[in-house]
Protein backbone atom coordinates (compact mmCIF):
# COMPACT_ATOMS: atom_id res chain seq x y z
CA UNK A 1 0.00 0.00 0.00
CA UNK A 2 1.28 3.43 -0.95
CA UNK A 3 0.07 6.47 0.95
CA UNK A 4 0.58 9.06 -1.75
CA UNK A 5 0.89 9.04 -5.51
CA UNK A 6 4.52 9.92 -6.20
CA UNK A 7 6.28 11.79 -8.97
CA UNK A 8 9.97 12.36 -9.60
CA UNK A 9 11.51 15.82 -9.29
CA UNK A 10 14.76 16.50 -11.13
CA UNK A 11 17.43 17.63 -8.67
CA UNK A 12 18.92 19.95 -11.27
CA UNK A 13 16.06 21.70 -13.11
CA UNK A 14 13.14 21.00 -10.79
CA UNK A 15 10.89 19.38 -13.44
CA UNK A 16 8.42 16.90 -11.91
CA UNK A 17 7.73 13.78 -13.98
CA UNK A 18 5.35 10.83 -13.87
CA UNK A 19 6.10 8.05 -14.74
CA UNK A 20 9.78 7.73 -13.93
CA UNK A 21 12.52 8.31 -16.47
CA UNK A 22 16.17 7.49 -15.86
CA UNK A 23 17.17 10.80 -17.46
CA UNK A 24 15.23 14.04 -16.97
CA UNK A 25 12.92 14.99 -19.87
CA UNK A 26 13.97 18.60 -19.35
CA UNK A 27 17.75 18.49 -18.85
CA UNK A 28 18.96 14.83 -19.05
CA UNK A 29 20.08 14.90 -15.40
CA UNK A 30 19.96 11.50 -13.68
CA UNK A 31 19.12 12.34 -10.06
CA UNK A 32 15.62 12.79 -8.71
CA UNK A 33 13.73 13.26 -5.44
CA UNK A 34 10.46 11.39 -4.99
CA UNK A 35 7.71 13.94 -4.34
CA UNK A 36 3.99 13.61 -3.67
CA UNK A 37 1.81 14.64 -6.60
CA UNK A 38 -0.76 15.92 -4.08
CA UNK A 39 -4.30 14.95 -3.15
CA UNK A 40 -6.15 17.08 -5.65
CA UNK A 41 -6.42 16.72 -9.39
CA UNK A 42 -9.02 17.30 -12.08
CA UNK A 43 -10.19 15.20 -15.00
CA UNK A 44 -9.13 16.36 -18.46
CA UNK A 45 -10.46 13.49 -20.60
CA UNK A 46 -12.11 10.10 -20.11
CA UNK A 47 -13.63 7.13 -21.90
CA UNK A 48 -16.00 4.32 -21.00
CA UNK A 49 -14.46 1.20 -22.45
CA UNK A 50 -16.99 -1.51 -23.37
CA UNK A 51 -14.52 -3.98 -24.93
CA UNK A 52 -13.08 -4.92 -21.55
CA UNK A 53 -9.44 -5.93 -21.16
CA UNK A 54 -8.83 -9.23 -19.35
CA UNK A 55 -8.74 -9.16 -15.58
CA UNK A 56 -10.81 -5.98 -15.26
CA UNK A 57 -14.00 -6.14 -13.19
CA UNK A 58 -15.45 -2.67 -13.73
CA UNK A 59 -17.90 -2.74 -16.68
CA UNK A 60 -17.73 -0.53 -18.60
CA UNK A 61 -14.22 0.43 -17.56
CA UNK A 62 -13.97 4.19 -17.06
CA UNK A 63 -10.45 5.38 -17.82
CA UNK A 64 -9.31 8.96 -17.63
CA UNK A 65 -6.39 11.33 -17.56
CA UNK A 66 -6.13 13.67 -14.58
CA UNK A 67 -3.97 16.74 -14.07
CA UNK A 68 -2.54 17.63 -10.65
CA UNK A 69 -2.08 21.18 -9.42
CA UNK A 70 1.61 21.06 -10.43
CA UNK A 71 0.45 20.26 -14.03
CA UNK A 72 1.71 16.66 -13.88
CA UNK A 73 -0.80 14.26 -15.47
CA UNK A 74 -1.61 10.61 -14.88
CA UNK A 75 -3.87 8.00 -16.46
CA UNK A 76 -6.06 5.81 -14.31
CA UNK A 77 -9.43 4.23 -13.61
CA UNK A 78 -12.12 6.73 -12.67
CA UNK A 79 -14.45 5.68 -9.86
CA UNK A 80 -16.88 8.63 -10.18
CA UNK A 81 -20.24 7.61 -11.69
CA UNK A 82 -20.76 10.53 -14.04
CA UNK A 83 -17.35 11.70 -15.17
CA UNK A 84 -17.16 15.18 -16.68
CA UNK A 85 -14.03 16.95 -17.93
CA UNK A 86 -12.97 19.50 -15.31
CA UNK A 87 -14.37 17.61 -12.31
CA UNK A 88 -12.22 17.43 -9.16
CA UNK A 89 -10.83 14.02 -8.21
CA UNK A 90 -8.36 12.54 -5.76
CA UNK A 91 -6.11 9.48 -5.93
CA UNK A 92 -7.20 6.35 -4.01
CA UNK A 93 -5.09 3.19 -3.55
CA UNK A 94 -7.09 0.19 -4.77
CA UNK A 95 -7.04 -3.05 -6.72
CA UNK A 96 -6.73 -2.26 -10.44
CA UNK A 97 -7.08 -5.68 -12.08
CA UNK A 98 -5.67 -9.17 -12.21
CA UNK A 99 -2.88 -10.05 -14.65
CA UNK A 100 -2.08 -13.77 -14.98
CA UNK A 101 -4.17 -14.44 -11.86
CA UNK A 102 -2.09 -11.95 -9.83
CA UNK A 103 -3.89 -9.00 -8.23
CA UNK A 104 -2.38 -5.66 -9.20
CA UNK A 105 -2.83 -2.58 -7.01
CA UNK A 106 -2.30 1.07 -7.80
CA UNK A 107 -4.00 4.46 -7.73
CA UNK A 108 -7.47 5.08 -9.08
CA UNK A 109 -9.27 8.42 -9.03
CA UNK A 110 -12.49 9.13 -7.11
CA UNK A 111 -14.66 12.20 -6.76
CA UNK A 112 -14.13 14.46 -3.75
CA UNK A 113 -17.09 14.15 -1.39
Amino acid at each position, binding site marked *: MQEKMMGFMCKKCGKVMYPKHERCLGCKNTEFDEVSLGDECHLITFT*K*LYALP*RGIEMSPLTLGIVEFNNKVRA*MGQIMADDPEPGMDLHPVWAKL*RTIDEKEVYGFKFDSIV
Partner: protein
Amino acid sequence: MMRDVAIIGCGITKFGHLDGKDLMDILVEASLNAIDDAGASEFDFDSVYVGNMLAGELSHQTAIASALVDRINLIPASAERIENGPASGGSAVKNGFFAVASGASDLVLVAGGEKMTGVNTGTISDLMATLNHPTAEYVHGATMPAMAALFTRLYMERYSLTERHLAMVAVKNHANGLKNPCAQLHKLCTVEDALSSAMVSDPLRLYYCCPISDGAAAVVLCPAKKAKEFTPKPVKILGFGHATDTHAFQEREDPIVLKSVKIAAQQAFKMANIKPEDIDVAELHDAFEILEIAESEDIGFFKKGEGQLAVEKGVTAIDGELPINPSGGLKARGHPVGATGVAQIVELVLQLRGEAGERQVRDAQRALACNFGGFGNNTLVHILERGN
Protein backbone atom coordinates in the same frame (compact mmCIF):
# COMPACT_ATOMS: atom_id res chain seq x y z
CA MET B 1 27.11 10.98 -50.47
CA MET B 2 23.79 9.11 -50.52
CA ARG B 3 22.47 7.55 -53.72
CA ASP B 4 18.95 8.22 -54.96
CA VAL B 5 16.66 5.24 -54.38
CA ALA B 6 13.84 3.95 -56.60
CA ILE B 7 10.98 1.52 -56.04
CA ILE B 8 10.90 -0.75 -59.10
CA GLY B 9 8.31 -3.31 -58.07
CA CYS B 10 5.47 -3.86 -55.65
CA GLY B 11 3.20 -6.68 -54.56
CA ILE B 12 0.37 -7.17 -52.12
CA THR B 13 -1.94 -9.97 -50.98
CA LYS B 14 -5.64 -9.71 -50.35
CA PHE B 15 -6.20 -8.28 -46.84
CA GLY B 16 -8.74 -9.80 -44.48
CA HIS B 17 -9.39 -13.29 -43.12
CA LEU B 18 -6.96 -15.40 -45.13
CA ASP B 19 -8.06 -18.83 -44.01
CA GLY B 20 -5.69 -21.66 -44.85
CA LYS B 21 -2.68 -19.36 -45.33
CA ASP B 22 -0.15 -18.78 -42.59
CA LEU B 23 2.14 -15.80 -42.06
CA MET B 24 4.95 -17.23 -44.18
CA ASP B 25 2.57 -18.10 -47.03
CA ILE B 26 1.37 -14.52 -47.34
CA LEU B 27 4.87 -13.02 -47.01
CA VAL B 28 6.00 -15.37 -49.79
CA GLU B 29 3.03 -14.39 -51.99
CA ALA B 30 3.57 -10.62 -51.62
CA SER B 31 7.34 -10.95 -52.08
CA LEU B 32 7.07 -13.04 -55.25
CA ASN B 33 4.51 -10.59 -56.64
CA ALA B 34 6.89 -7.68 -56.00
CA ILE B 35 9.94 -9.45 -57.47
CA ASP B 36 7.89 -10.44 -60.50
CA ASP B 37 6.52 -6.91 -60.88
CA ALA B 38 10.10 -5.56 -60.81
CA GLY B 39 11.19 -8.04 -63.46
CA ALA B 40 13.91 -9.11 -61.04
CA SER B 41 13.26 -12.86 -60.91
CA GLU B 42 16.65 -13.71 -62.40
CA PHE B 43 18.64 -11.25 -60.26
CA ASP B 44 20.51 -11.75 -56.98
CA PHE B 45 19.23 -9.69 -54.06
CA ASP B 46 21.66 -8.15 -51.56
CA SER B 47 19.37 -7.63 -48.60
CA VAL B 48 15.89 -8.36 -47.26
CA TYR B 49 13.95 -6.49 -44.55
CA VAL B 50 10.73 -7.92 -43.11
CA GLY B 51 8.39 -5.71 -41.08
CA ASN B 52 6.42 -7.73 -38.53
CA MET B 53 5.23 -7.18 -34.98
CA LEU B 54 3.74 -10.40 -33.62
CA ALA B 55 5.09 -13.51 -35.37
CA GLY B 56 6.55 -14.93 -32.17
CA GLU B 57 3.40 -14.27 -30.17
CA LEU B 58 0.73 -15.23 -32.75
CA SER B 59 2.40 -17.65 -35.18
CA HIS B 60 4.89 -19.26 -32.80
CA GLN B 61 7.65 -18.54 -35.26
CA THR B 62 10.74 -16.35 -34.85
CA ALA B 63 13.50 -15.21 -37.23
CA ILE B 64 10.96 -15.00 -40.05
CA ALA B 65 13.29 -13.09 -42.40
CA SER B 66 15.61 -16.13 -42.47
CA ALA B 67 12.58 -18.30 -43.20
CA LEU B 68 11.48 -16.01 -46.05
CA VAL B 69 14.84 -16.00 -47.91
CA ASP B 70 14.82 -19.78 -47.66
CA ARG B 71 11.26 -20.18 -48.99
CA ILE B 72 11.87 -17.97 -52.04
CA ASN B 73 15.61 -18.61 -52.43
CA LEU B 74 17.12 -15.19 -51.98
CA ILE B 75 20.10 -16.91 -50.30
CA PRO B 76 22.72 -15.57 -49.51
CA ALA B 77 21.11 -12.08 -49.20
CA SER B 78 21.32 -10.53 -45.74
CA ALA B 79 17.95 -10.80 -44.02
CA GLU B 80 16.39 -9.39 -40.87
CA ARG B 81 13.01 -8.86 -39.25
CA ILE B 82 12.19 -5.31 -38.22
CA GLU B 83 9.88 -4.94 -35.21
CA ASN B 84 8.65 -1.45 -34.46
CA GLY B 85 5.07 -2.00 -33.33
CA PRO B 86 2.44 -0.86 -35.85
CA ALA B 87 5.23 1.10 -37.62
CA SER B 88 7.23 -2.07 -38.37
CA GLY B 89 6.43 -1.85 -42.10
CA GLY B 90 7.53 1.78 -42.40
CA SER B 91 10.70 0.95 -40.48
CA ALA B 92 11.44 -1.91 -42.87
CA VAL B 93 11.05 0.46 -45.84
CA LYS B 94 13.40 2.94 -44.17
CA ASN B 95 16.01 0.24 -43.62
CA GLY B 96 15.74 -0.83 -47.24
CA PHE B 97 16.13 2.78 -48.32
CA PHE B 98 19.32 3.12 -46.25
CA ALA B 99 20.76 -0.11 -47.61
CA VAL B 100 20.49 1.22 -51.17
CA ALA B 101 21.23 4.90 -50.44
CA SER B 102 24.42 4.01 -48.56
CA GLY B 103 25.80 1.97 -51.44
CA ALA B 104 25.78 -1.25 -49.41
CA SER B 105 23.03 -2.93 -51.47
CA ASP B 106 21.99 -2.72 -55.11
CA LEU B 107 18.86 -4.84 -54.97
CA VAL B 108 16.65 -4.99 -51.88
CA LEU B 109 13.37 -6.67 -50.98
CA VAL B 110 11.22 -5.05 -48.28
CA ALA B 111 8.24 -7.07 -47.10
CA GLY B 112 5.75 -6.58 -44.28
CA GLY B 113 3.17 -9.02 -43.02
CA GLU B 114 0.98 -10.05 -40.14
CA LYS B 115 -1.38 -12.96 -39.49
CA MET B 116 -3.87 -11.81 -36.84
CA THR B 117 -7.15 -13.62 -37.46
CA GLY B 118 -8.02 -17.03 -36.07
CA VAL B 119 -6.83 -15.89 -32.65
CA ASN B 120 -9.05 -14.83 -29.76
CA THR B 121 -9.85 -11.09 -30.07
CA GLY B 122 -9.02 -10.59 -26.39
CA THR B 123 -5.51 -11.94 -27.03
CA ILE B 124 -4.95 -9.57 -29.97
CA SER B 125 -6.30 -6.64 -27.98
CA ASP B 126 -4.03 -7.48 -25.03
CA LEU B 127 -0.91 -7.93 -27.19
CA MET B 128 -1.54 -4.61 -28.92
CA ALA B 129 -2.09 -2.95 -25.52
CA THR B 130 1.36 -4.10 -24.38
CA LEU B 131 2.88 -1.42 -26.57
CA ASN B 132 1.47 1.15 -24.14
CA HIS B 133 3.50 2.25 -21.09
CA PRO B 134 3.55 -0.77 -18.73
CA THR B 135 3.02 1.03 -15.41
CA ALA B 136 1.45 4.33 -16.46
CA GLU B 137 -1.04 2.94 -19.03
CA TYR B 138 -1.27 -0.81 -19.63
CA VAL B 139 -1.79 -1.84 -16.02
CA HIS B 140 -4.84 0.45 -15.73
CA GLY B 141 -6.55 -1.33 -18.62
CA ALA B 142 -5.58 1.01 -21.47
CA THR B 143 -6.22 -0.76 -24.79
CA MET B 144 -5.61 0.91 -28.15
CA PRO B 145 -9.28 1.93 -28.62
CA ALA B 146 -9.23 3.44 -25.11
CA MET B 147 -6.15 5.50 -25.95
CA ALA B 148 -7.75 6.73 -29.17
CA ALA B 149 -10.97 7.54 -27.27
CA LEU B 150 -9.14 9.65 -24.66
CA PHE B 151 -7.41 11.45 -27.52
CA THR B 152 -10.69 11.99 -29.41
CA ARG B 153 -12.48 13.52 -26.43
CA LEU B 154 -9.62 15.99 -25.94
CA TYR B 155 -10.00 16.96 -29.60
CA MET B 156 -13.75 17.41 -29.25
CA GLU B 157 -13.31 19.56 -26.14
CA ARG B 158 -10.83 21.85 -27.88
CA TYR B 159 -11.98 22.05 -31.49
CA SER B 160 -15.21 21.91 -33.51
CA LEU B 161 -14.68 18.20 -34.22
CA THR B 162 -17.82 16.10 -33.68
CA GLU B 163 -18.63 12.41 -33.90
CA ARG B 164 -20.17 13.09 -37.28
CA HIS B 165 -16.73 13.95 -38.67
CA LEU B 166 -15.36 10.57 -37.56
CA ALA B 167 -18.30 8.96 -39.34
CA MET B 168 -17.56 10.96 -42.49
CA VAL B 169 -13.95 9.72 -42.56
CA ALA B 170 -15.23 6.14 -42.22
CA VAL B 171 -17.77 6.67 -45.03
CA LYS B 172 -15.04 8.01 -47.33
CA ASN B 173 -12.63 5.18 -46.54
CA HIS B 174 -15.31 2.51 -46.99
CA ALA B 175 -16.18 4.01 -50.39
CA ASN B 176 -12.50 3.96 -51.39
CA GLY B 177 -12.02 0.42 -50.09
CA LEU B 178 -14.89 -0.77 -52.28
CA LYS B 179 -12.73 0.19 -55.29
CA ASN B 180 -9.67 -1.65 -53.98
CA PRO B 181 -9.66 -5.38 -54.81
CA CYS B 182 -7.17 -6.02 -51.95
CA ALA B 183 -9.25 -4.30 -49.28
CA GLN B 184 -10.70 -6.30 -46.40
CA LEU B 185 -14.02 -4.42 -46.17
CA HIS B 186 -15.97 -4.25 -49.40
CA LYS B 187 -19.11 -2.43 -48.44
CA LEU B 188 -20.34 1.11 -48.47
CA CYS B 189 -21.38 2.62 -45.17
CA THR B 190 -23.48 5.69 -44.49
CA VAL B 191 -22.98 8.33 -41.81
CA GLU B 192 -26.06 6.86 -40.09
CA ASP B 193 -24.60 3.31 -40.17
CA ALA B 194 -21.45 4.61 -38.52
CA LEU B 195 -23.30 6.74 -35.95
CA SER B 196 -25.46 3.79 -34.92
CA SER B 197 -22.67 1.18 -34.73
CA ALA B 198 -21.74 -0.39 -31.38
CA MET B 199 -19.93 1.75 -28.81
CA VAL B 200 -16.41 0.38 -28.30
CA SER B 201 -14.84 3.06 -26.13
CA ASP B 202 -16.97 6.17 -25.73
CA PRO B 203 -16.92 8.34 -27.93
CA LEU B 204 -15.49 5.76 -30.36
CA ARG B 205 -17.87 3.39 -32.10
CA LEU B 206 -16.98 0.28 -34.08
CA TYR B 207 -16.94 2.16 -37.40
CA TYR B 208 -14.29 4.59 -36.18
CA CYS B 209 -11.83 1.72 -35.56
CA CYS B 210 -9.93 -0.50 -38.04
CA PRO B 211 -10.62 -4.25 -38.23
CA ILE B 212 -8.30 -7.15 -37.31
CA SER B 213 -6.57 -8.41 -40.44
CA ASP B 214 -4.20 -10.77 -42.19
CA GLY B 215 -2.13 -9.50 -45.09
CA ALA B 216 1.28 -8.84 -46.55
CA ALA B 217 2.86 -6.34 -48.92
CA ALA B 218 6.30 -5.97 -50.49
CA VAL B 219 8.42 -3.61 -52.59
CA VAL B 220 11.71 -3.95 -54.46
CA LEU B 221 14.28 -1.15 -54.25
CA CYS B 222 17.39 -0.33 -56.29
CA PRO B 223 19.54 2.73 -57.04
CA ALA B 224 17.53 5.27 -59.09
CA LYS B 225 20.24 5.19 -61.77
CA LYS B 226 19.61 1.51 -62.42
CA ALA B 227 15.82 1.65 -62.19
CA LYS B 228 15.20 1.98 -65.93
CA GLU B 229 16.96 -1.35 -66.48
CA PHE B 230 14.00 -2.92 -64.67
CA THR B 231 10.93 -0.79 -65.31
CA PRO B 232 9.74 2.12 -67.46
CA LYS B 233 7.83 3.45 -64.42
CA PRO B 234 10.14 3.72 -61.41
CA VAL B 235 9.04 5.67 -58.32
CA LYS B 236 11.66 7.65 -56.41
CA ILE B 237 11.86 7.83 -52.62
CA LEU B 238 12.45 11.58 -52.24
CA GLY B 239 12.75 11.62 -48.48
CA PHE B 240 11.84 10.11 -45.16
CA GLY B 241 11.46 11.20 -41.57
CA HIS B 242 11.33 9.16 -38.38
CA ALA B 243 10.75 10.53 -34.89
CA THR B 244 9.63 9.48 -31.42
CA ASP B 245 7.78 11.01 -28.46
CA THR B 246 7.17 10.15 -24.79
CA HIS B 247 5.94 6.62 -24.21
CA ALA B 248 3.07 7.73 -21.97
CA PHE B 249 0.53 9.73 -23.95
CA GLN B 250 -0.55 11.91 -21.02
CA GLU B 251 3.00 13.15 -20.48
CA ARG B 252 3.21 15.06 -23.77
CA GLU B 253 3.28 18.82 -23.44
CA ASP B 254 0.06 19.07 -25.48
CA PRO B 255 -1.38 15.55 -25.73
CA ILE B 256 -3.34 16.31 -28.89
CA VAL B 257 -0.27 17.41 -30.84
CA LEU B 258 1.36 14.37 -32.48
CA LYS B 259 4.91 15.63 -32.14
CA SER B 260 6.48 12.49 -33.64
CA VAL B 261 4.28 12.98 -36.74
CA LYS B 262 5.16 16.66 -36.91
CA ILE B 263 8.91 16.11 -36.67
CA ALA B 264 8.97 13.09 -39.01
CA ALA B 265 7.00 15.08 -41.61
CA GLN B 266 9.26 18.12 -41.27
CA GLN B 267 12.33 15.92 -41.76
CA ALA B 268 10.81 14.23 -44.81
CA PHE B 269 9.77 17.51 -46.43
CA LYS B 270 13.23 18.96 -45.80
CA MET B 271 14.99 15.96 -47.32
CA ALA B 272 12.62 15.93 -50.33
CA ASN B 273 12.93 19.71 -50.59
CA ILE B 274 9.19 20.15 -51.12
CA LYS B 275 6.24 21.48 -49.08
CA PRO B 276 2.97 19.90 -47.91
CA GLU B 277 1.11 21.67 -50.74
CA ASP B 278 3.27 19.80 -53.28
CA ILE B 279 1.74 16.46 -52.25
CA ASP B 280 -0.98 15.08 -54.56
CA VAL B 281 -2.08 12.01 -52.59
CA ALA B 282 -1.44 10.61 -49.10
CA GLU B 283 -1.86 7.36 -47.19
CA LEU B 284 -2.29 8.11 -43.48
CA HIS B 285 -2.43 5.70 -40.53
CA ASP B 286 -6.14 5.69 -39.64
CA ALA B 287 -6.14 2.81 -37.15
CA PHE B 288 -8.82 5.09 -35.65
CA GLU B 289 -10.55 7.68 -37.81
CA ILE B 290 -9.51 10.53 -35.48
CA LEU B 291 -5.90 9.77 -36.46
CA GLU B 292 -6.48 10.52 -40.15
CA ILE B 293 -7.67 13.98 -39.14
CA ALA B 294 -4.96 14.59 -36.53
CA GLU B 295 -2.14 13.38 -38.79
CA SER B 296 -3.41 15.47 -41.72
CA GLU B 297 -3.01 18.52 -39.48
CA ASP B 298 0.32 17.69 -37.86
CA ILE B 299 1.87 16.78 -41.24
CA GLY B 300 0.97 20.32 -42.33
CA PHE B 301 -1.79 19.68 -44.88
CA PHE B 302 -4.36 21.59 -42.80
CA LYS B 303 -4.26 23.96 -39.81
CA LYS B 304 -4.50 22.34 -36.37
CA GLY B 305 -8.15 21.90 -35.44
CA GLU B 306 -9.35 22.28 -39.04
CA GLY B 307 -8.71 18.83 -40.52
CA GLN B 308 -12.38 17.94 -40.11
CA LEU B 309 -13.39 20.88 -42.32
CA ALA B 310 -11.40 19.33 -45.19
CA VAL B 311 -13.31 16.08 -44.66
CA GLU B 312 -16.63 17.98 -44.65
CA LYS B 313 -15.79 19.74 -47.93
CA GLY B 314 -14.65 16.56 -49.69
CA VAL B 315 -11.05 17.82 -50.03
CA THR B 316 -9.73 14.40 -48.97
CA ALA B 317 -11.99 12.33 -51.27
CA ILE B 318 -10.46 10.58 -54.31
CA ASP B 319 -11.64 13.43 -56.56
CA GLY B 320 -10.78 16.14 -54.02
CA GLU B 321 -7.78 18.47 -53.93
CA LEU B 322 -5.80 16.19 -51.61
CA PRO B 323 -7.07 12.59 -51.68
CA ILE B 324 -6.27 10.78 -48.42
CA ASN B 325 -6.35 7.00 -48.15
CA PRO B 326 -7.57 6.18 -51.67
CA SER B 327 -6.78 2.54 -50.76
CA GLY B 328 -9.49 2.62 -48.09
CA GLY B 329 -6.88 3.19 -45.39
CA LEU B 330 -6.44 0.97 -42.38
CA LYS B 331 -10.19 1.27 -41.86
CA ALA B 332 -11.24 -0.51 -45.05
CA ARG B 333 -8.09 -2.05 -46.53
CA GLY B 334 -7.41 -3.53 -43.09
CA HIS B 335 -4.52 -3.30 -40.62
CA PRO B 336 -2.28 -6.36 -40.47
CA VAL B 337 0.08 -4.34 -38.29
CA GLY B 338 3.49 -5.26 -39.73
CA ALA B 339 2.19 -5.02 -43.31
CA THR B 340 0.56 -1.60 -43.07
CA GLY B 341 3.64 0.62 -43.58
CA VAL B 342 4.61 -1.36 -46.69
CA ALA B 343 1.02 -1.54 -47.99
CA GLN B 344 0.80 2.27 -47.84
CA ILE B 345 3.90 2.48 -50.07
CA VAL B 346 2.47 -0.12 -52.48
CA GLU B 347 -0.74 1.91 -52.84
CA LEU B 348 1.20 5.11 -53.52
CA VAL B 349 3.44 3.40 -56.09
CA LEU B 350 0.31 2.22 -57.95
CA GLN B 351 -1.15 5.74 -57.74
CA LEU B 352 2.06 7.35 -59.06
CA ARG B 353 2.29 4.83 -61.90
CA GLY B 354 -1.32 5.48 -62.83
CA GLU B 355 -2.25 1.85 -62.16
CA ALA B 356 -4.72 2.24 -59.32
CA GLY B 357 -7.77 1.35 -61.40
CA GLU B 358 -11.12 2.68 -60.22
CA ARG B 359 -9.55 4.49 -57.28
CA GLN B 360 -6.91 6.28 -59.39
CA VAL B 361 -6.19 9.83 -58.26
CA ARG B 362 -5.86 12.25 -61.18
CA ASP B 363 -2.28 13.01 -62.30
CA ALA B 364 -0.47 12.18 -59.06
CA GLN B 365 3.19 13.26 -59.13
CA ARG B 366 4.14 13.21 -55.43
CA ALA B 367 2.82 11.18 -52.55
CA LEU B 368 3.23 10.90 -48.79
CA ALA B 369 2.85 7.95 -46.41
CA CYS B 370 2.56 8.22 -42.62
CA ASN B 371 2.97 5.03 -40.56
CA PHE B 372 2.20 5.62 -36.89
CA GLY B 373 3.55 3.32 -34.20
CA GLY B 374 2.73 3.08 -30.53
CA PHE B 375 0.07 5.55 -29.61
CA GLY B 376 1.85 8.31 -31.49
CA ASN B 377 5.29 7.76 -30.02
CA ASN B 378 7.09 6.37 -33.08
CA THR B 379 6.22 7.64 -36.55
CA LEU B 380 7.64 7.23 -40.05
CA VAL B 381 6.91 9.46 -43.02
CA HIS B 382 8.01 8.69 -46.58
CA ILE B 383 7.69 10.97 -49.63
CA LEU B 384 7.60 9.43 -53.10
CA GLU B 385 7.76 10.91 -56.59
CA ARG B 386 6.87 9.57 -60.00
CA GLY B 387 10.17 8.96 -61.82
CA ASN B 388 10.36 9.92 -65.47
